[in-house]
C-alpha cells in the first residue's frame, strides 16, 4: 500500500527508533518488523494527508468536508504517535539537531527516518511546484512588511530559498523540501539542523500559511489575538490572523505553550541568529518561527 521507495529506504537505514519498543518486552525480529511496518504505513499516511491538505486549487474554495476529514486523520495519527513516544523521539532528534547546529551520524538516522520522501514517491504523486510566492489568490500578502524588531526585514518571499530547517508544525515532512529541487534533498536531510537558517525564507511556511487559508482561514477573517504590545499590534493591525488556524489545528495535542505572534517577534528579536536553546522549548520555538514567517510573508 505504501510506496516501494519508502520501504527500500527504510531497510537501508539503521535501527528503527519508532518501533514502539516500549510495548514489546522481548522484541522478536518479526514483531519489530511488524511494528515498524505499521509505523511506516502510518508515516506514509501522514505524509499523504499533509500533501493533500497543501495541494488545493486556489481558484475555487476547497472542499471543507474533505479538508476537515483529512485534518482529523492527521490529528489522529499525531495523537497516536504522541502516545507511542514516536513523537517524542522525533522532536528530540529535531531539537538536538538544532541545538548543535550540526548533525552527527546518529541524528542523521533519526532524520533519515523522518525524511520519507523519495524519488519514487515524488514520481507517484503529482506535486505541482508550489508557488512559494503567494501570488495567485493572495495578492495582499506582499504588502505586509515587517520592519525593525530584531532585524527581521523581508518583504518578499523568494521561491528559491532552501528550506533549511524542518517545519515545526509536525517536526517532519520533508516532502515539501522537494520543491527546492531533488538534488538538494539528500543533502537537506543533514542540513535540517538549521544552520543559521531561522531567518531563511521557507517554502514550507508559505505553504503552511496558504494551507491554513485554504483549509480554514479563507472562510473567516478573525480578529487578531490580543497583543501585549500595543505598538506591535498597530503594526499588525491589518494582518489576517486566520493563518494560525491550520498550524494550531493540526498540532492539536502539542503541549507547547501557545504564543501569540507578537510574543514570537519579541523573542525572535532577542534570539537573533543564535541556535535555539533547550529541547523542551525547541518545538515551541519552531512553532514560533513558523508563525513569524507566516507574519512576514503575510499569508
Amino acid at each position, binding site marked *: 500500500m505504501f510506496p516501494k521507495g519508502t520501504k527500500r529506504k527504510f531497510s537501508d537505514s539503521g535501527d528503527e527508533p519508532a518501533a514502539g519498543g516500549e510495548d514489546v518486552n522481548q522484541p522478536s525480529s518479526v514483531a519489530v518488523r511488524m511494528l515498524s511496518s505499521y509505523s511506516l504505513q502510518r508515516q506514509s499516511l501522514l505524509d499523504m494527508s499533509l500533501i493533500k491538505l497543501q495541494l488545493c486549487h486556489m481558484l*475555487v474554495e476547497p*472542499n*471543507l*468536508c474533505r479538508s*476537515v*476529514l483529512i485534518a482529523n*486523520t492527521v490529528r489522529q495519527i499525531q495523537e497516536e504517535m504522541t502516545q507511542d513516544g514516536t513523537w517524542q523521539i522525533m522532536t528530540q532528534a529535531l531539537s538536538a539537531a538544532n541545538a548543535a547546529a550540526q548533525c552527527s551520524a546518529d541524528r542523521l538516522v533519526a532524520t533519515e527516518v523522518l525524511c520519507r520522501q523519495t524519488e519514487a514517491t515524488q514520481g507517484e504523486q503529482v506535486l505541482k511546484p508550489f508557488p512559494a510566492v503567494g501570488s495567485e489568490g493572495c495578492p495582499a500578502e506582499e504588502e505586509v512588511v515587517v520592519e525593525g524588531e530584531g532585524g527581521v526585514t523581508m518583504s518578499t518571499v523568494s521561491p528559491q530559498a532552501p528550506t533549511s530547517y524542518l517545519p515545526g508544525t509536525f517536526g517532519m515532512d520533508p516532502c515539501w523540501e522537494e520543491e527546492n529541487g531533488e538534488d538538494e534533498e539528500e543533502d537537506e536531510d543533514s542540513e535540517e539542523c538549521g544552520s543559521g537558517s531561522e531567518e531563511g525564507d521557507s517554502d514550507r511556511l508559505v505553504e503552511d500559511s496558504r494551507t491554513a487559508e485554504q483549509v*480554514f482561514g479563507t472562510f473567516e477573517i478573525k480578529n487578531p489575538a490580543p497583543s501585549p504590545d500595543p505598538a506591535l499590534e498597530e503594526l499588525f493591525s491589518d494582518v489576517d490572523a486566520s493563518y494560525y*488556524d491550520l498550524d494550531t*489545528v493540526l498540532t492539536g495535542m502539542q503541549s507547547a505553550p501557545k504564543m501569540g505572534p507578537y510574543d514570537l517577534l519579541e523573542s525572535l528579536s532577542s534570539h537573533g541568529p543564535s541556535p535555539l536553546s533547550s529541547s523542551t522549548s525547541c518545538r515551541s520555538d519552531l512553532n514560533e518561527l513558523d508563525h513569524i514567517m507566516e507574519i512576514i510573508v503575510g499569508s
Partner: protein
Amino acid sequence: MGEDTESSKGNHSFLRDYVTEADVISTVDSTTQENLLATGDKGGRVVVFQRETVSSLLPPTSSHLLSSLLPLPPLLSQPKGELDQVGETGESGEYNVYSTFQSHEPDFDYLKSLEIEEKINKIRWLPQQNAAHFLLSTNDKTIKLWKVSERDKQPEGYNLKDEEGRVKDISTVTSLQVPVLRPTDLMVEVRPRRVFSNGHTYHVNSISVNSDGETYLSADDLRINMWHLGITDRSFNIVDIKPANMEELTEVITAAEFHPHHCHLFVYSSSKGSLRLCDMRASALCDRHTKLFEEPEDPGSRSFFSEIVSSVSDVKFSHNGRYLLTRDYLTAKVWDLHMEKGPVETYQVHDYLRTKLCSLYENDCIFDKFECVWNSSDSVIMTGAYNSFFRMFDRETGRGVTLEAWRETSKPRAVLRTRRIYTGGKRRRGDVGVDSLDFTKKILHMAWHPEENIIAIASTNNLYIFQDRVSPDTQGPDLGSDTI
C-alpha cells in the same frame, strides 16, 4: 474539452469520444406528477425530461431518435436474477427532453478572490400546485427558483404591433380588431422566479422543500438556513455548528432533509457519521438536537480511515416518514426514528473495498459522496457504487443485487443482468475482479420515481432510465409472467 453549444448537447452527446467536464451530471430529481425528471450538470445547466404518457403511436423513426438521446433500457429487474429477453413492446414510458436551460453561471467572490463554480449541486422539485412546475436548483452559494411552464397558445392580432412585434405605423391601421389566442406549437418556457443569494458562507450541499409547501431549507458545511419561497432577502438560520474558534472545527454538515409529513422536523447528517433530528418548535436555533442517531464505533475495526468511512454522504427520509436511510462510504443503513442507538438495518454496498481504503484515500475516491434512494413503498433501497455499478437491496429479504449502468453492455429495451464482484471462491463467468474496477465510473446521483418503479441513474454524462418491465405499478413485479 471546450464548451459545447446548447444545440449540440442534446443530439450528439453520445457521439463524442470524450466526456466534456461540463456535461457531467451532478444531480437528479423527479416529480410526483407529470413525470418530470430534472438533471443538473457541472456546467450549470438543467435538463428536464418528461415521460411520455401517450401510448405509443410514435413512428419508429422518432423512437430511434429518443434512444439515441439517452441510452434507454426500459427494463428493470428486481433482485431475482437473470430475466428473459423481452421483445419490442413499443410501450409508452420513454423520457424525452422537455427543456434545457442555463441555471447558474460561473461567478467570482471578490472578497476572497475565489471562483464560485456554476456546478449544480442539488435540484428539488416543488409539489405541484397549478399547471406550472417549479424547481429549486442550487450551486455552491445561490439557490434559484425556476418556473417551468408550457405555452401552447399565442395571442395574435394586435392593433399596434405587427406579427414580429414591431410597432405599426398608425396611418396603416384602418380598423380595430380583437386579439385572439391561437394554438401554436407547444413551447416550454423556463423563467427564474426567485434568486436566494448571500445566504451561505460555505458550500451548499443540500436543499429540501418542506411539506408545508411554503418553506425550504438549504444546508452548507456549517449552517442550515430556512427560507420562505416568496422571500429572497431574508432567511432564518436554524442550525449553526461553526465553532467560535475555527481551529476547533472537526465536524461538518453533509446533508439535510425535512420530514415528509411533519413540517417542524428535519434531520441533518455529519461527517462523523451521526444524524441529528431537530424540532423547530423547540427553539429558533436548533443547535440542540431532539434526537441524536449514532452507532457506537466497533473498537475492533478501528483504523485511520474509520472516521472518513463513517462520514454520511446522503440522508433520506422514507416516504412513510418512519425511517431514515443513510449512506456512508461502504454501507447503507436504515434507521428507525424511534431508535437512536443504532441502525435497524445495515447493507454492505462494496465491502470488498475495505482493504483498499489506503489506495482510495490516495486517489481521493474515499471522499466520493454517494446518494441513496427509497422506492415508493419503502421496501427497496438503492445506492450507487463504482464501475458503473449500482446496488439495490430488498429490505424484506435483506438481499442485495448489483446492476450495471453502462451503455456498451445494455441496449435499449434489454434486460438488466445482475453482476457480481469476485471476492474469492468459485469464479463465475462475468464476475468482475476487484482490481479491475474502474473507479472513475462512479454512480453518485440517482432518483426513484415517487410512485412507480422507474429509476434514473446518472453516470458521468449519461442518464440511464430503467423501468420495471412487467408493470410500472407499485406492487412488486410478477416475474415469470410472459407478455405485458
